[in-house]
């Protein structure tokens, strides 16, 4: 019999060459993200630190501790924005985490299939809604309601920011907590039920503690999302030109708003100080990412012990 060997095929002969080409294609694809990150860091940091050096340097202390942002008076203080960003984020976490966590537990452990079939697409849709739509909703619905009940004249306020951010971080919190709850081995639950625990006891004493690293990662990611959110918060924050928000009714000016609102027309030192604002924001995000890496690597090693 006359067998044609598979080894004679052209594809086989070329395969080694193909492998090499593909390896480079993969590598260059992977490099694009690394290069982007490096380019952004160099560019933003480079521009952002310039105003603090040279003959007409702006005082870094005044920048970082200042309570007023008034480009026309050549005054550029961002401390009240840092405070506003952090307080709004804190508020969104305080509201969003319990709601998100309870939703995740409900879906994972309690919800009948039919309700889950409604909830999950709703949450996915919420995650997919563009930021500007949240802003429109905030401006059209939340701000007027706040205006009615607020002791101050304006409905644009830290409370409005917090409520919009809460809605926006819910999908993150829910889906990440849900997957960490779902990842818990059934054997833990069996052990708990086997010891005579009720469903609620099993949820609070066994499931949530076992899922805590994943839940923590969800919270940190939620913080990152909240602190970096721009468009929606800009629309409802009020963006005052000075003063730390002392109550939820006060206007606030998140760091992100500051950059987004003025970058379009600013020039010179004013523009560079907007980059500096971006640097501060960037540092917050890097800290958050570092914490996230620490937490998730801990999740990984716990997994190995199983």
């Amino acid at each position, binding site marked *: 019999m006359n067998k044609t060997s598979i080894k004679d095929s052209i594809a086989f002969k070329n395969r080694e060459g193909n492998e090499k080409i593909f390896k480079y294609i993969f590598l260059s694809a992977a490099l694009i993200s690394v290069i982007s990150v490096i380019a952004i860091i160099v560019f933003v940091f480079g521009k952002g630190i310039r105003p603090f050096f040279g003959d007409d340097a702006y005082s870094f202390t005044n920048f970082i501790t200042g309570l007023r942002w008034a480009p026309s008076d050549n005054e550029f203080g961002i401390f009240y924005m840092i405070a506003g960003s952090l307080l709004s984020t804190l508020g969104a976490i305080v509201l969003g985490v319990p709601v998100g966590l309870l939703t995740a537990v409900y879906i994972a452990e309690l919800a009948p299939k039919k309700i889950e079939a409604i909830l999950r697409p709703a949450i996915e849709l919420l995650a997919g809604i563009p930021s500007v739509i949240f802003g429109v909703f905030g401006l059209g619905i939340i701000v007027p309601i706040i205006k009615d009940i607020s002791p101050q004249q304006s409905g644009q306020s830290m409370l409005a920011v917090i409520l919009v951010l809460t809605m926006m971080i819910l999908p993150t919190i829910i889906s990440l907590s849900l997957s960490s709850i779902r990842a818990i081995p059934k054997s833990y639950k069996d052990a708990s039920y086997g010891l005579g625990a009720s469903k609620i006891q099993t949820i609070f004493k066994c499931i949530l*503690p076992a899922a805590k690293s994943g839940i923590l990662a969800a919270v940190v990611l939620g913080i990152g999302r909240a602190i970096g959110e721009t468009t929606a918060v800009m629309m409802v924050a009020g963006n005052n030109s000075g003063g730390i928000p002392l109550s939820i009714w006060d206007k606030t000016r998140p760091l992100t708003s500051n950059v987004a609102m003025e970058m379009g027309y600013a020039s010179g030192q004013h523009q560079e100080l907007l980059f500096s604002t971006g640097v501060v924001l960037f540092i917050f995000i890097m800290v958050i990412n570092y914490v996230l890496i620490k937490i998730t690597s801990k999740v990984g090693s716990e997994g190995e012990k199983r």
Partner: protein
Amino acid sequence: MNNNSKFSVEDLDLFYGDFQALKKINMEIQEKEITALIGPSGCGKSTFLKTLNRMNDLVEGVTIKGKISLDGKDIFKEMDAISLRTRVGMVFQQPNPFPMSIYDNVAYGPRIHGITKKSVLDEIVERSLRQAAIWDEVKDKLKKSALAISGGQQQRLCIARTLAIEPEVILMDEPTSALDPISTLKIEDLAVELKKDYTIIMVTHNMQQAARISDKTAFFLVGEVVEFDSTENIFNNPKDIRTEEYITGRFG
């Protein structure tokens, strides 16, 4: 009905959906004895065991017919699952400690049942770990993660965790199948020791193990109990040819 009967099972049928996993099981399980359940894979041993503490309630689509009573009380009609499970503890095939400290693992059950006082918990934890013959090995690392000890130690920890709720019956589903021979012997010795105070029902694939430590043996085959008798009779004098084939290893 025998006076020392702990569990009495009458005409028990169990269905997973349409599939009948247990067929007309009748059995009297004696107090303070070790009852071994043997039989080929898939014959319903685990299913039967899980019915005794109603862990099957958690599985979707299960229907149960017939009657099981514990000390004469119907476990389905006269007891709720939670109080049943505090009287009938369970040790699983794979050691499954919680991802918490050794101490918290043992204290889990007592805490669930409302014990909060530290001194009481300390005492329960120590007593249970001693009973499970693991106290000396872990007494210096009670605050360490339970996942950081060996599989054999984890299994004895799981036994301690079960003992901490002071059950009357302990169900064990192939408790040594994941363990090395030395850990296996430790668990066997432990079971023999525990039977002074507890009724033990143990699924095992290990014929020698059943022969060594059990008082009664039930042989299961495709959902039925073929033969249930003293371990001595089952291993030396089986009445049914299928039992004989199985224990001598000539089975299919």
